[in-house]
Structures are given as C-alpha cells and as structure tokens.
C-alpha cells in the first residue's frame, strides 16, 4: 500500500494513502476536537470543529474530510485555528440552552468538554434564544431535546450507515432544522436507538429509562456481558447505590464493536425489580410456602439421593459456564447423564454433530456472502445484523430463505418467502439448480424435482432460479440457520437440505440458536450424550481426564435430551427434575408433554428470579441471582468465553446458582470445594480443552454431504398456517419488568396476507379472535405481505400467545380467526 508523509505541528508522520489529516494527527497523539465525525461512519464535515491550518491552502480546512497528501504541512494549534474553534463553539452555543445542570449528558458531554477546552468564556449573544418544546418522547426509550441539538447528523447517519433502519431523520430547513422520527419508526420501533444516545455528542438524545436516575460521577461501572441473546455483547454496567441504572456498550471489535441493541441497552431493570424472589419456597399440602434454605436444600438433597440416578437437569442459558459445569458434574456424580441446556426446543440432536453456535463473527467481514436460512437475524441477534450490514455494504451478497419476510429484506440480493416448513424444498431446488449451473448433478440430487418443490413451498420457480444464480455468482457463502427453521416442522430435513446445498456450493455453516450462555452450557457438559468440550460420552481420553479431575467417571449410558426427559418424566421413569434458570412450562413448544411430565415428577426444583410458570408449578423454588449479580464467565454463540463481574448485590436471601450447587453437593455427600469462580474455570479449561478466555471455540462442523430426504405429504386442513416468529421486543418474565421494553413490544399484532384479509373481510387494524390449539386471544390484525397467503404471522413471547399450550407435535399448526371488528377503531 502506498503511503504519504506529512508534517503536523512540526512532527512528521507517514500514513497509508487515503488517511485523513484527523487520523494522521491522532496517530501522533495530537487531539483535534470533533462533533460530527465518528470513526465508525464516513466523514461528513458538518460541524466545522476540526478545523486545521494547512500551508499553501487559502482557508482553514476540516481535518476529518481532508485526505493527507504528500508533503502537506498542517498546524492544529495556530492562532487562526484556536480563534476559529472559539468562534465555532460560540456559534454552536448561540441557541444551546446551557441547561447542563438538568441534562443527563452533563459530566460526560463532548460539547461541555470541548467548550471548556477550546471555547470562549462568554457569549456575545444577548438576543432571545430559539425555543423548541423540551423533552419530547420520540419512543418509549428515547427523549429528544431539540434545543440542545447541534445538528451534527450522527444519529441520522447511524440509521442510514450502520443500522440501516432510518429511525431518525432531519426535518425542516435552516434555522428550524430539527431531528424527528419518520413514519416508519412509528410503525416499527428501531432496535438500535440506544446507540444514537451513546454517540450523540450533546444532550439532545437521552435515554428515557435512565433519565435523571444518576449523574456520571454517581455510577460505578463494572464490565459485563449482555445475556439477552447469544451474541454476548460486551457492556459496561453502571450501578448506583446497589441499583443498575444504565448499561452501555463496551468496545469489543470482535463481537459487538461499539454497538448494542435496545434489548441490551434497556433490558436491565428486571434485576432491580421488587418482585424478585427473596426466599426459598417448598410445596406442602399442595401449596408453596416460604422456607429456610436449610429446609429447601434438605428436601432437594433427599429427593435426589432417593431417586438417583433417575434424576435430570434442564436449563443453562442463564447460568455462567462455571455454574453449568458444576451442575453437570453434580448430576453425573449421581449417575445421571440426563442433562440438557436446550430447554426451549423439541429439536435435540446430538451436540457433537449439531452444536449450536457460530464460527468467529469476524468471518462475516471477509465472507463473499451470507445465506440466511430461517434466520431472522435482526430480531434474534440484532448486533450480528450490524456486522452483516457492514459486510453487505462492502459488497457481500445477502440471500435468505424464510417463512416470513425479514425486516432486513431490502438489503439482501435475494430473499425468498416460502410456505411454513418449505425451506427444505426451496433449498433442495436451489441445490439442484446450482449443481446444474455448475455442470454436474450428483446422483441423489437428480431425484429433486424443482417444479414440484417450488409448488410445495409456494414459491415461484423464477425466484428460486434467481436465488441459485446469485448463489453461484457469490461463491462459497456462509450459511446461517436460524430459529425459524429450528422451530419449524422439519428441522432435520432442513439441516439435510442445507448440507446438500453446501455440498454443491461450498461454504461454512452457522447454527444460530440459544440465548445467553446456552452454547457455553452445552460446552460445559450440559448435554445428554457429550462430555465437557463436546466430546462423545464414550471417548476414553475424556473419561480418563474427568476421572482424574472429578475422582469418578461419568456414567456410561447416554442420557436423555429435553423432549425424551419429559417423556420419561411423564412415564414415571424420571423422578426428580432440576430446572436451572429456565421456564420450560412456558417455552417448551409442547405444553401437553410438559404437563404430563410435571404430573409424573416426584420433585420439580427450579432456581429462578421471578414467579415464572415453571416456578409456580414447582415443588421447591430457590431464589437465584441475575447475571448482574455474580462473577463468572459467559460463552456466546462463537463459543467465546467472556468474564463478567457483579455490579450489584442481589436481593438478600437469594443465592447464585453456583453456590446453590455447592451447598447441594455438600448435602449429598459429594462436596466439591472450589475457593473461587476462577478455580472452577481452571478446572473447566482442563476438562474441555479448547475453551480459552476471549477465543472463539473451534466447533467441529459436519462435512457437507448430499442427503436428499423425502418431503412429508402435505396435510389438507382448514385454517391458516401459523408462522410463529419471536420478535426482539417481547413481554417475557424479564423484559416485561424492564422500564420501556413493554412499551417497545406493544401489544401483539398478527399478520395476515391481503388475500386472506379480503376473504375474511378484514381491514388493517381489525380486531379478531385467534384460536390456536386450545388457546384463544383477542388481538389486532396487520394486513401484510410478510407471509404467503394461507399463513398467519403470530408473535411469540407475549402472554396472549402461550406457545406451550399450542401442543405442536411436528405438524403444522392451524389458526382460526373470528372477526370481531372488521375495521380498526383507530386508523393507524
């Protein structure tokens, strides 16, 4: 790469060609004040704060837009520059209200800091200032003060360049210019608006959730990791007086760069919530009553001893990886391999073949393209979408196959919406077409009839052909299989189809599923047929390793996965179930199975933060600590372990899952004495080689192979096919207890295609009663093209749609609509 050499303030610096003067100065450690420039976005030159003097150039130049040239002589502190900065600041402050004492940005405000450093001491402006209404709520989490805005355009450009959601726009002209939300944001709240608060250089955009709760100097920041989804974004957690008041992004280029989604930004208040469980409960005479820890643990220990080895453990996404390891070790010491961290899924293949997780996220930065299979990236893993957006802007090809229109469709080269459960058909058809284009069709693929597959999936042949054409042009893309497919009716067949497509087109495979530490829990051993480190249960080397570490060998017989465990419990073969921070009663997609399992269990133990559905049905409820309250390590989708530190004390009476397991181990006569969390981590590292702090885990992916599986015959049934889609903003036990988030989630709206709406006589905004399985809910309808005709888009994660009571056992769910109000009462 060619370089240029220039002189800044008398010092010489050599930088790559194309570097701006601002960055060249930064390289020398020379600070140039900026407002509009942000190094994650291209330069704009709007604020004029970064003026420098360049010899042989007639006027002052904005250093953020000025490309460094060979032999340039730049002065950043000349009298002219200093005077210009004073003048710019005087101008910026003309209409600024200077209400720093009541501004949440006060104390960490670049405008304040730069005014102190470079500004004039006083203003000559005596005329009345321009006034706007103060503190406008632009969204449930965002407050705008237009008087404070200096029109740097960072927030609007974030929506254009980084997030792609265009959530904020400039309105009006000249003196009246202001920031506002365009109509699209009113319809669908932005998922990344917290970032605009973070990058706003003044107090114009502030958090409505954090509003007036603390000043920067009150806060004690601790490093954390967001556990709302599986991306594992690094955060700073600000606590004041034992209360978590704010979460900010912590720079981590490999994972979240400097961004967070709004669930991460605003999803913290549950930890401060007064409804947190504070004492253990035990069931006596059919009702749960308060108990002491001794009593509750004694009851659990006795039941475990009596029932061992017919005991099982579920959950792990909310545990730290150390706690998951301790849980696995404890249950294996009882002779049981019945362990599964994947408590919210029917689909439980062996994790050594199909381990949930992704390669390094950084692979996105160089991949020629991404093929999303049933992966609603912006809803499930929003910060990963920001990385994908960056890749697409660089020229990577985005392709998608999903049963619903993705929010990010507009940025993809080709996105195919198919009938629910039809992704395998589409993928087989694409594989066949790709193979044809490449000139050699493997034997098995010849069975695939493209036209028949397209018909079954409800997709026009042209769309599939275009998809194949794009895929061939892109080369070996990265396949990301997401939750819409895992939850679909035939996940095995979908995976086989992805493998087939990979075999003809090449490319890596990501299996995106699981929140928080879900991947880490499986890696730590919470899986029925693998040992820590995804090693097969029968692997002699691993067994020997664990025997040395544990003093006993893990049991030989493979355990049961979540669905099998519940079946066994229903049949009375599993006596005790220990649920660690999971809510299968609400999340497991087959509620009737759960009900039978619950009835068959002798003892159901739950460690929880709140009275979840599972907790209400349990025999012993143990109050646990949230991820803000305990030290440990959390593993994200990449298998990257990251340390977290406690930012507040938990409610008195609650205990960390790890401590509960240690106490339980003592009572069971299997004491495991670890001095610290680090000691557990060190042992886990030895038990699971490859697991290293801050390094992605090297997942083994199966080699692509052509595996054509026959399609299941279509069922002819009445009603609309339910497409369950989990939006980012839900009303779960935790997010419903966070200020701002329930308002972002709003009330659930079902989506109907215009054809069906016409047949049913519905208008957008109509009120209907939706019957799914045994449940029924009154909701509003949105007429949409997000699903194909004959389908109903149902948001899950809302109390109106208790998914566990839908009782799906592999078939397509049907919904029946009864129109209550054909026209919306209020037009939207």
């Amino acid at each position, binding site marked *: 790469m060619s370089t240029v050499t220039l002189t800044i303030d008398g010092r010489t610096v050599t930088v790559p060609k194309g570097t701006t003067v601002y960055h060249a100065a930064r390289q020398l450690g020379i600070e140039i004040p900026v407002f509009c420039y942000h190094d994650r976005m291209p330069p704009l030159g709007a604020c004029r704060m970064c003026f420098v003097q360049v010899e042989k150039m007639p006027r002052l130049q904005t250093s953020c837009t000025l490309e460094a040239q060979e032999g340039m002589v730049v002065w950043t502190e000349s009298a002219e520059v200093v005077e210009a900065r004073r003048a710019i600041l005087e101008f910026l402050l003309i209409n600024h209200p200077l209400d720093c004492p009541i501004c949440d940005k006060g104390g960490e405000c670049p405008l304040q800091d730069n005014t102190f450093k470079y500004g004039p001491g006083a203003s000559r402006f005596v005329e009345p200032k321009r006034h706007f209404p103060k503190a406008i709520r632009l969204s449930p989490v965002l407050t705008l003060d237009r008087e404070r805005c200096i029109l740097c355009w960072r927030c609007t450009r974030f929506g254009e360049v980084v997030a792609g959601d265009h959530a904020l726009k400039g309105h009006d002209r000249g003196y009246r210019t202001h920031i506002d939300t365009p109509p699209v944001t009113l319809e669908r709240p932005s998922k990344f608006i917290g970032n605009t608060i973070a990058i706003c250089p003044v107090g114009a955009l502030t958090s409505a959730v954090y*509003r*007036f709760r603390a000043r920067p100097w009150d806060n004690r920041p601790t490093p954390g990791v967001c556990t709302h989804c599986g991306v594992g974004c690094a955060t700073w957690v600000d606590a004041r007086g034992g209360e978590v008041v704010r979460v900010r992004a912590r720079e981590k280029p490999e994972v979240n760069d400097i961004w967070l989604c709004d669930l991460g930004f605003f999803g913290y208040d549950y930890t401060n919530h007064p409804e947190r469980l504070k004492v253990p409960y035990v069931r006596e005479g059919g009702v749960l009553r308060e108990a002491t820890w001794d009593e509750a643990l004694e009851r659990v220990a006795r039941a475990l001893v009596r029932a061992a080895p017919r005991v099982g453990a579920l959950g792990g996404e909310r545990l730290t990886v150390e706690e998951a390891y301790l849980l696995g070790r404890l249950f294996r010491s009882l002779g049981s391999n019945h362990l599964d961290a994947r408590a919210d899924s029917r689909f439980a293949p062996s994790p050594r073949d199909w381990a949930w997780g992704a390669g390094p996220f950084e692979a996105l930065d160089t991949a020629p393209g991404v093929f999303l299979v049933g992966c609603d990236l912006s809803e499930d893993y929003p910060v990963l979408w920001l990385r994908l957006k960056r890749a697409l802007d660089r020229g990577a090809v985005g392709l998608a196959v999903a049963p619903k229109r993705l929010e990010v469709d507009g940025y993809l080269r080709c996105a195919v919406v198919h009938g629910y459960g039809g992704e395998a058909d589409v993928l087989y058809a694409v594989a066949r077409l790709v193979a044809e284009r490449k000139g050699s069709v493997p034997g098995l693929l010849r069975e695939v009839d493209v036209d028949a597959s397209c018909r079954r999936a409800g997709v026009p042949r042209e769309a599939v052909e275009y998809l194949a054409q794009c895929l061939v042009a892109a080369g070996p893309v990265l396949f990301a299989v997401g939750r819409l497919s895992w939850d679909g009716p035939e996940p095995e067949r979908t995976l086989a189809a992805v493998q087939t497509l990979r075999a003809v087109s090449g490319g890596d495979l990501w299996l995106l599923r699981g929140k928080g530490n879900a991947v880490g829990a499986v890696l730590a051993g919470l899986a029925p047929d693998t040992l820590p480190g995804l090693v097969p249960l029968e692997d002699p080397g691993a067994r020997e390793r664990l025997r040395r570490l544990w003093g006993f060998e893990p049991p030989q017989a493979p355990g049961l996965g979540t669905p099998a465990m519940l079946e066994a419990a229903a049949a009375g073969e599993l006596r005790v179930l220990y649920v660690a921070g999971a809510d299968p009663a609400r999340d497991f997609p087959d509620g009737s199975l759960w009900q039978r399992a619950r009835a068959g269990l002798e003892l159901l133990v739950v460690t929880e933060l709140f009275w979840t559905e599972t907790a209400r049905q349990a025999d012993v409820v143990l109050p646990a600590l949230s991820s803000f309250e305990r030290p440990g390590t959390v593993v994200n989708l990449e298998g990257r372990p990251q340390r977290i530190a406690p930012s507040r004390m938990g409610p008195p009476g609650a205990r960390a899952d790890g401590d509960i397991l240690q106490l339980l181990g003592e009572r069971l006569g299997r004491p495991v004495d670890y001095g610290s969390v680090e000691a557990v981590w060190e042992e886990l590292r030895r038990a699971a080689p490859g697991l290293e702090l801050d390094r992605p885990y090297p997942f083994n992916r199966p080699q692509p192979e052509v595996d054509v599986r026959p399609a299941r015959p279509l069922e002819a049934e009445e009603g609309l096919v339910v497409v369950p889609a989990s939006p980012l903003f839900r009303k779960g036990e935790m997010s419903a207890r966070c200020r701002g988030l329930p308002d972002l989630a709003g009330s659930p709206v079902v989506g109907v295609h215009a054809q069906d709406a016409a047949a049913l006589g519905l208008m957008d905004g109509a009120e209907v009663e939706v019957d799914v399985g045994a449940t029924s809910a009154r909701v509003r309808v949105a007429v949409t093209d997000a699903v194909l005709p004959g389908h109903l888009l149902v948001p899950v994660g809302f109390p109106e749609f208790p998914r566990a009571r839908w009782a799906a056992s592999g078939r397509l769910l049907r919904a029946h609509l009864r129109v209550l109000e054909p026209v919306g009462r209020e037009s939207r």
Partner: protein
Amino acid sequence: MGGAVRNRNGWQRVVVEGAAILKGMAVTLRHLFRPPVTVQYPEERPRIAGRFKGRHWLTLYADGTERCVGCELCVIVCPSQAIYVKAAENTPDHRVSRGERYAEDFQINMLRCIFCGFCEEACPTGAIVLGRDFELADYRREALIYTKSMLQEPYPGASGRDPNREV
C-alpha cells in the same frame, strides 16, 4: 546577622532575651485588665459573624417552587462526600421545581460536613445556602443525617435568602 546572634556572650544574651520576655509579659499584663472574651454559652448567645457558615437550607422561590433541580453539582464538589441527591422528573401534575428535574431525595450527613460552603458556591440555582444555625448536636447519629424535609426552608425567605432573587 545570624552569626552575630550565635556569637553573643552571656551578658548580651541576658539583655536581649530578657527584653523579649518582658515584651511578652507586657502583652499578658495588658490583657489581664481587659474584659474577658469568653461567652457563657448557652446562657449567653455568641455574636455570629456576617459570613458565618452554619447549617444548610434548601431555599424556595417566592411562588413556593423549589430552587433545587437535583443536578448533584453539590454532591460532586463536596470534599467530605456528605451529600446524597436523587433526582426525579417534574410532571405537569406534580411540579416541584422549575425546569424538568427536581430532587426527590436530598440528604446531608452533618457528621461528615465540614461547613466549607463549596456546595453553596457550586449550586447553579442558589438552592443550597449555609445558614447561621450552628446548634446541631444530637444524641443519635441517625438524627444528624438531615433529610429533605429538614433542610427545606419552611416558607420562602425563611432562610434569609431573598425568594425573588433569580439565582
């Protein structure tokens, strides 16, 4: 000159240092015949200087709204970390101060306070003033953590600050 002092002989020292002692004794003697400055507190009240810094008041505007906006500048400037403020937002139905923000909770730990008056200097609205009351003793430590209701002046101007003054 220092050398000269050290080189004095015995008689010279007696004269020079004896003169100093006499000079000091003269001052003592003079004060012996002046009236005493001791105040027979609490029977007798001491005279308080004009700029004396005593207990704090949170002052009000003439219309009864609080001056304090809960900005916590007093908290950050306080050298003994004696102040705790928790802010909240004014609503149209519940307007406590001017502007958007008010102090929902305001506490001063009088055990920690060193009465330096920095809080009064830092206050952007002139809300906190140090008054003239110095009789702050109590038998219980908890009683010396002054809460907002104790700090607030009972009526506008009660602390002596002009309630019509802007800042």
